[in-house]
């Protein structure tokens, strides 16, 4: 009976990217779309800062990339979470969920 609560995404562009890749691999534009879907953040973050972030995350081993073909048959690099990236994301998500739940409980109890 999930009530359709969208997940909270705290923190940086890095976390947003990891979150965007949580369920399936995407290429850069797909990541941008997904982030926009989740938070509208992309309006403030120019596409310019998306790719440096993607490359950095790949270098650090949170995501890994592979060439493939996009929906309209263009060559595109698809990114996917690595196990480390998954851990990073789930640790952060769990951490913030716990804080939010405790805080919400108090703030409702006024």
């Amino acid at each position, binding site marked *: 009976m999930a009530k359709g609560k969208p997940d909270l995404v705290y923190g940086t562009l890095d976390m947003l990217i990891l979150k965007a890749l949580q369920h399936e691999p995407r290429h850069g534009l797909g990541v941008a779309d997904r982030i926009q879907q989740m938070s509208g953040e992309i309006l403030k973050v120019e596409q310019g800062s998306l790719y440096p972030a993607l490359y950095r995350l790949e270098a650090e081993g949170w995501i890994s990339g592979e060439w493939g073909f996009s929906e309209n048959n263009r060559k595109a690099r698809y990114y996917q979470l690595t196990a480390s990236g998954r851990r990073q994301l789930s640790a952060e998500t769990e*951490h913030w969920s716990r804080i939010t739940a405790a805080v919400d409980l108090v703030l409702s109890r006024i």
Partner: protein
Amino acid sequence: MNEEMRSHLDGLTERNVLAGLPPQEARFLAQRQFGNLDQIKERARDQRGISWIEELILDLRYAMRTLGKNPGMTATIVFTMALAIGASTGVFSVIDGLLLHPLGPDPHTEREIRIFETQSPKISESRVSAANFIDWKKQAKSFAFMRAGAGADLNLTGSGEPVHLVAGRATAELLGTHTWTLALGRGFLPEDDVPGKNKVIIVSYQIWQRLLGGDPRAIGRILQVNGESYTLIGVIGEEISRFSGADAFIPMAFTDQERAERGRRTLGVWGRLKPGVTLAEAQAEMNVLAAQLARQYPDTNQGWGVSLVPVNQLQYGSGLREALWALLGAVGCVLIIACANAANLLLARATARSREMAVRAALGAARARLVRQLLTESVLLSLLGGTAGVLFAHWGLAAVHGYAGSGMERLGYVGLNSGILAFALVLSMGTGLLFGLAPAWFAAGANLNDTLKRSLRGSGESGSRGQLRSALVMIEVALAMVLVAEAGGLIRRLVERGRLDPGFGAEHVTVLQLRLPQPKYAKPGEQVAFATAVVTHLRDVPGVQMASATTSLPIPQPGFGFQIDGRPSRPHSDWPVTSAYAVTSDYFSVMKIRLLQGRAFTAQDTPQSPRVAIINETLAKQYFQNENPIGRHIDLGGSGLDTWREIVGIVGDVTEFGDDTAVTPQVYEPFDQSPGPGLNFVVNSPEDGASILSSLKQQIYSVDKDQPVLSIRSLQSILDEQVAGQHFAVHLLGVFSLIALVIASVGIYAVVAYTVTQRTTEIGIRMALGAQTEDVLRLILTHGARLIGFGLLVGIGAALAVGRTVESLLYHVNTNDPLVLAAVTLLLVAVGVFACALPSYRATRVDPIVALRCE
């Protein structure tokens, strides 16, 4: 009334005198003319009627006398009702505390509203963006005030150990409206809510006690939070602090960036309705506002609406809900058993009192009056039982608080309040009426003639009354059977699981749990360096045998998709799922996990060396069947050659302690090759005194003095916490089934004993005609056996049916365990035999002469 009649009489007398009679004769004549004074008075009284309060008092006094004359029966009924009502009250308290009012004793009323953003059709309770909140606050007229809160990641450093605070940011109205009690200091003011002026902090009562020593002059102290200086301005009152688990609050102080990012929805928003404004009106206004914002800011707000939910309707439930409803069902059974018992005993008494009732009826008492009087007795009984029951519930809840330690903190907030006491009162009266109805009806319907005739012969279990009583006993037995069978099944399951080999050893393992904050430890290299340094330091602590780090403990955890080399590749969403642990090299030794094939991780497995992995037995069997997994490759996410890992070892399965303890596939990676920010340091040391715990923590601080340790405790306590909820529920069930058993056996005893009494004459006759002791025994026992037997049959059927429903509700456990059912049947038979024993013995001691003579 007396005066009135006397003056009437005087009047008549006078008239007679005037007519010429001497005074004495005048008086006599007047009295004869008037009629029998007393009889008239009585009739007049009846016409006038006594007030119902006077009648009630009469009934009560009579009831108390009657009950006093029957101390055995009274005590039995009061005691059984006390157990049943106490258990019901207790369970209701728990349900009230955990489900109905999870926010503690009733906060405000429906005027407190939580405000969500929505995006139909999928999102119904979204958090709110800062920009939207600010616009709402400015423009919405329905709310006296509106406030917002968000989470905050705060670490307290500088004095003593670094401490992580579960904290929130809150806007000024929240704490400034002082409906919270503050133990010290003040709440936030609008001045605080501005970036630059917002370095103030309010802490919880527990933090104040623990870290500031409860210093009454702590206000004004400077605390180092996330490296900056914050002034302490307030301490939250004890009650709220105990309830929530939030450690501190800082002002919201929106940054410019937050105000600009209208699409970033991170806030919880609450509002209080203005007096006179209804929820519907407020919702309508907010809808208009939302539509307006959607037009103004289509990029972020198009399609987004608003939803208002009164705070006491918010759902905070968890999987606990099903378990609690099941408990409610169990306690309902106990109640029915107790009522059936009481009804039975009263029915037996009704027969005995039928003579008394018949006489009263003959003297002019209306049937309704008699029924009312008998109902007064039964309600009095159950009220007495209820009072004792509330006492039992109070003690019981105190015991329940013992569970509030690990894993069930909110249980500490469960207690008796006026609402629950009212419930107990209503329950007592209701059950009194329920079980008193049939006996009252039967007793009051007695006909004097029939009754006097019948008692001469000493009737037995004949007629509808007897059948009803037998039926009641069978219901009791059946229900007791169901309860004990369910509890037995669950208990057995728990015990079995406790005995299973979990695949690792938790004795002497201490766990330090940390979270490496971001962005300080964003790079994997930094995470690896930290973990490696800490593990080295931990090993050097005297008393520590081995130490290791891991990203996960053997408890339920999110799964990772994986694939095996040589299989056709599938889309990521189709990948099978495994638990994944990233561990440093000594992990398997510390946890005593068996290595079955190949090798464990060593210092040679570095970030630069080839990627490796170790799998567990289940994964090997399920995905490699007869092939040798060693040398094959597994991918835990990512593509490209460098994320395929070579399988270098197979280890034994590890049970992940939680609700479903089926064994799952498990994969281990070297921490150095796949780190994460959530760390558990597992340390093997025989001692666990305070001094060694402190030394262990010191090792963390020696690597990073500002790194808080979230918790340090034994692995066993962490595992226990995972199953605390289940254990609690099963223990309660066990207690209830015991109560049910006791009450049911009392019921059996009472019925059989009564049978003996009723059939005393018959037994006397039989013995006089030559029946032996065994014959008498057989007579009584057969009767009892028939009762119990039918009850058991019905009970087994019901237990099987219930077991199947329970299976779907609770912990995926099948309680239709033949062994348990057989054991419970035997138990109930034994109980039944025992309950029949004493009366049967008494039956054999009947002296035929006495039996024949009495009556």
